[in-house]
């Protein structure tokens, strides 16, 4: 072992790791992500046809999708969808719902304050921080570039 340097070993060990099945992952992510979006579109169309305002339709669709994501997480189904769909299941709002509900369920054993409430954000927290943070940066840039017009 002494005659192998660390850099060489790291490269060698890397080569021994089976490569991810990129094409399969991409196709499955497209199909699963696409299917979730189709469900969203069906809800959207149904609400529009039922006479809701444009604003109510967009928030209503998100609310229903978040509910579906949470329900499927609670029923132990969403983790299986995530395993198949990868980013296709993580990026839509149902994935965000899964990221909030799964730690909330998991850490219930540590109580409602230190468990559920504080651990709820362990996965979604960074998304919230940098999502909200970058929207503020973009907002300021917009304000400066357009001088508020």
């Amino acid at each position, binding site marked *: 072992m002494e005659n192998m340097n660390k850099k060489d070993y790291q490269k060698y060990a890397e080569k021994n*790791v089976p490569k991810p099945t990129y094409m399969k992952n991409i196709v499955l992510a497209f199909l699963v992500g696409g299917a979730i979006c189709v469900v969203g579109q069906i809800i959207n169309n149904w609400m529009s046809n039922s006479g809701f305002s444009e604003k109510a339709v967009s928030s209503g669709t998100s609310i229903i999708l978040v509910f579906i994501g949470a329900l499927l997480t609670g029923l132990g189904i969403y*983790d299986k969808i995530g395993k198949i769909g990868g980013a296709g299941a993580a990026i839509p709002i149902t994935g965000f719902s899964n990221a909030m509900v799964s730690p909330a369920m998991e850490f219930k054993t540590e109580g409602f304050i230190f468990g559920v409430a504080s651990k709820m954000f362990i*996965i979604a927290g960074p998304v919230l921080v940098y999502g909200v943070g970058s929207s503020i940066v973009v907002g300021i840039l917009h304000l400066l570039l357009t001088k508020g017009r």
Partner: protein
Amino acid sequence: MAVKKLGSQTVKFQNPPSIRSTYTIVGPKEGEGPLKQYFDLILEEDKWGQESYEKSEAKIQEEAIKGAISNGKLTNKDIDYILSGDLLNQIISSTYTARQFSIPYYGLYGACSTMTESLSLGAMLIDGGFAEHIVCATSSHFSSAERQFRFPLEYGSQRNFAAQWTVTGAGATILSSQGSGPYITYATTGKIVDMGIKDPSNMGGAMAPAAVDTLLTHFKDTGYSPSDYDYIFSGDLGKVGKAIVIDLMLNEGYDLSNKYTDCGVEIFDNDNQDTHAGGSGCGCAAAVFNGYIYKEIKKGNFGRILLMATGALHSTIINQQGESIPGIAHAVTIDLNKG
């Protein structure tokens, strides 16, 4: 004068401790694996009626120890020490298990190398004349390990192909100063080997150099070669780590390909059980040794084996700070005869 010390890292026992009895408990998934017939108890449900996975793991370890004591026809009063460890922070599974017994307790942390760490130290205590009977035990639980090291169970993520599946299970061994064997004849204590692997999903790659280092040292210290062993088992290197060990040992002039395997490769049917690179966790080497290997030695199918559990001694905190994963491997020779 260290009269029992051999070479740089090995001890040769003058009065080799006898393995009096063992007991294993595994979870439902392990109970569907290829070694199912060797486990003493297979749980139908991995929470085992407890409120949390941590409490379940402690119960699994406790029942494994009770099982081993009773298989050895001993009572708690006969046991001089419990040497045990697990993966959870502050080794709570072992401590809360030891709370149930009124027996002196040493808590060990060697991550997944704990089974052979406890066997080595237990054997030294007995050979040194400090104890008559010792319990060596470890446990791990898939669900308690996932929440400490990775993601919540219901979170929809994809696992890396090098990733391993933490074994839910525990194994306990009773070592005694007198008995008809099998015996622990040598123990080679590993040193930390860190080749700079930082990816916690590639534990096999991180621990394999430590395994190779311990194997080479063991052969050098004892004068044994692979042909002196019927089989050599590493703890939980998985498919990736096993391939690296075979490859690196071949570079050093040792052909292990037909007499070496890894407990993590054997415990699951990786293709059908979706466990990627194989099993891991303290419970992996513990269940495979105290179940499969011990029972096969007792039947006479193995005369002398080398058991080398492997550990990745990092934490999520130090890993997030950019540090690499230190590996370790401790080996014990288990022989049907006193050697």
